[in-house]
């Protein structure tokens, strides 16, 4: 699970994104030490063009 660290942990620097095991990521989010990073998805717009959201 992708998260952005907000409170530096051992081996995890604040301000950077990490792909962590779900249980670790969820624990950090629960402790207010990380925020989830929304994965960008390709979507088709009304005008037929692809975009990322």
């Amino acid at each position: 699970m992708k998260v952005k660290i907000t409170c530096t942990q051992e081996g995890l620097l604040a301000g950077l994104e990490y792909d962590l095991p779900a249980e670790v990521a969820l624990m950090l989010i629960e402790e207010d030490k990380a925020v989830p990073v929304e994965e960008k998805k390709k979507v088709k717009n009304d005008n037929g063009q692809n975009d990322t959201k």
Partner: protein
Amino acid sequence: MTTGRTTLNNWRVYIDGYDLSGYSRTFGPLATTFDEGVDDAVSLSVKAALVGNAAVSMGTLNGLFDNTATSGIHAVMKTAGGERDVLLACGIQAAPANNDPMFCGQFMQLGYSGDPDNNPVYASIPFGNISATSAALAYSNPWGVLLHAKSARTAANSSTGLDQSASSALGGYMMYQVFAGDGTATLKVQHASTNSDGSFSDLISSGSVNCSSPLSGVVALARTATVNRYVRWQLALGTATSVTFAIGFVRGN
């Protein structure tokens, strides 16, 4: 934020979660200096210096001796040799307000001495440079903004933030000073590209801390972390219903 000149009586001194302003007379010099190399010739047009390797110092804190239990300057500062979280808030023509300048760092306390020759008795507390164990050791700039001036809060912040002109990708760090509280809470700096409440996301967090007794800390971002243009303080209450705190933020440069 008011702009203009100010005077010493508008500064406030916060150390390790204690407000020592009422005991402090002078402090400084607040210095950021780069040493010259020992082999720098006088003819060098630009003197050599290691980038990002400045010596940051807050000089000496001169205060009035007071042995009030727990919170007096003697009780708080009598043990030298340790690292202190120091936040010096610079009010402009008044007591410090949100977004005023501030100077902060984790400094080694080099000594503590009383001077009984004077009346009242002075306490003199010299500080060394930024501590080698400081979380913000990678940063040479101790000057930032007081995102949250000392005051009690009972709810989260839904206001817009401070416009710092542009985003940057040079990290930054937060110092928090918690003076009082009645349970756990998380102190944060949030950032956004658009200055509206719903746009802010967490940038730096203290993690959940117990605010029942004074505490302080520094949380530093990685040196390459992106900080968006707008920043603001944030409080997430845990078991606490009220927290009295100050937050300083330094954007990396």
